[in-house]
């Protein structure tokens, strides 16, 4: 069973003559790293928004397993089923690195006593040191911030990770590092990782590549 399925999904913005996402059907499996490439304005962000449950399709369905997400509590869907990382990292600036990673766990009711050790464990896995864990995000490099963001995404326990241009603000070295982490998550830990990017080199690291053009999704590889 696919982790996420799109069935004839169409999304049209209000007052727009043509759909941003047009009749897209595809499946995203666990244990696979997907790349969705396409130029700016092709509908990638809209697709990502629907996969994250931040928008619902104008027609068609996004299914989590077999369940249409429109019938789910979308806040809970985002807490427990999917996680996101962004080009600009989007960490809470006034929380320490550890507190950032604790946030999704506290959201589901875990006490700090339980959340902090788990957060430190996840941060260690992505290569953040004890000293760096006490810092605020502004005191970290871009690569470190993105790794913290990945740790935060893992903290919720969600097995579907959505990444919006995760290497857009990183140098080559950190790009490679981040993509290795995402690949490992997919291949070794069974995550379904969907990366939206316009960088073809990032797409090369993916197991499956889709191309988005004028709202239509076609499988390239």
């Amino acid at each position, binding site marked *: 069973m696919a982790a996420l399925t799109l069935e004839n999904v169409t999304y049209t913005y209000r007052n727009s003559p043509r759909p941003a996402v047009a009749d897209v059907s595809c499946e995203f499996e666990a244990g696979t790293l997907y790349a969705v490439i396409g130029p700016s304005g092709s509908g990638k962000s809209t697709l990502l928004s629907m996969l994250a449950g*931040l928008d619902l399709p104008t027609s068609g369905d996004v299914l989590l397993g077999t369940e249409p997400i429109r019938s789910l509590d979308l806040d*809970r869907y985002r807490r427990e089923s999917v996680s996101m990382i*962004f080009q*600009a990292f989007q960490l*809470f600036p*006034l929380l320490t690195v550890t507190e950032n990673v604790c946030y*999704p766990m506290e*959201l589901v009711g875990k006490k700090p006593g339980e959340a902090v050790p788990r957060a430190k464990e996840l941060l260690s896995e992505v290569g953040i040191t004890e000293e760096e864990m006490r810092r605020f995000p502004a005191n970290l490099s871009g690569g470190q911030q993105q790794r913290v963001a990945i740790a935060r995404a893992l903290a919720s326990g969600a097995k579907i990770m959505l990444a919006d241009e995760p290497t857009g603000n990183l140098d080559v070295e950190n790009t490679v590092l981040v993509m290795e982490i995402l690949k490992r998550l997919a291949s070794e830990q069974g995550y379904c990782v969907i990366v939206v990017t316009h960088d073809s080199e990032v797409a090369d690291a993916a197991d499956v590549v889709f191309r988005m053009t004028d709202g239509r999704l076609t499988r390239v590889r």
Partner: protein
Amino acid sequence: MIFRYVRRHIPRAPVRSLLSLLLAAALIASLGQFVSVVRSNRALVGRMYDTVDVYASVINRSGAVSAAVPYAAIETLLEADFASSYYAESRGPLYWVTPSHEEVSTIYNFTDAEEFGRMTGVVYADGYDGSMFLESDEKVCVVSERALEETGLSLGDTIHISGASLGIRLDSRTSQAAREGVEFTIVGTFGGGLGTYDVATPFWTMKVARYTFYAGSYEGSGKARTVEFRIRNELLRDPAAYRDAPNEALYSSVDSDVNGLALRVLDSEVTNVIVPLDRNTNLLEMLLPMICAVVTVIGAAIPGLVIIQSAKEAAIMRVLGTPRGRVRAALTLEQTLLCAVGLAAGVAALAAAHGFGGEIMPYLAEILLCAAIYLAAAVAACFACSVSVSARKPLELLQTRE
């Protein structure tokens, strides 16, 4: 979790937090000071109206000071009920008349012995004191000690005073009463200040004098030589009540001795000091609600703007699965808390600046009400802005535009 979020947030954004706090404190302290100034000014104006002494005297309508005021005019003015008290005195010639003795003297009628002042060393009989001159309606009098010695009279005896002399031929101009005289009971003695055979009586007996003495003498025809009214303080806010009404009463009298008179009010302190202060205070009182509204709008807008600037953070919370309600609560609580603390600090600082003393404490309830309205407006604005912020599409805020 929301409290933990807010507890972390406030100290970690010290400049923003302090500015929010100081803004609320400064605004409420300023507003509170304005409230106390306006209210204490109003109280001061009230006290000034209640304590200022304003007097009026009677003049001829032509503007000249009246040398004599008929008793009828005094009665007319008293009926106009604009005076809290009055002092009046008059005098007229009289004759002590005994079967074998007469002395030419003067009868003094006045309302207040102390005000009169010329009579010294007064001793009253039991049951009498200086109030007899205004409050007694008996024909009583105070004479000199020497007069008693020379005539052999004592306290409690009566004297016969008349407008007619034994040596003057009685004619048609002299009234029956003038011929017959009036009996006065001696209830006090004075040591000096007046003539030996001068007599001091209550003012109302001037009416008696009008019919008693020779009609041709202006001083003996029931006129006061001095009359001064003290205006009732409660009327001072209404010039028509203490200027127009008494003058109208004089003008409308059928007595030609009365309707040619006017009341001159010496109220420069009222018109030059109290009334302008009253007007300024009226203006401030009109401005007060507007200023409260402006302060409240500013006080509510600033935390709202801070929340709008937190839109990205709210978007992160939403993307991570935080329910909209919790996002709104976190954003609202932080600013509301800062506002509430700022308001409390501002009110406390204002009270401390006044030494927790009488200048500010009477108005503390009103200031606290202003603070409560301010806080309610801030909460409403924060909530409205947090609703707006949490309703925005998160990815629009979080995605990097190319």
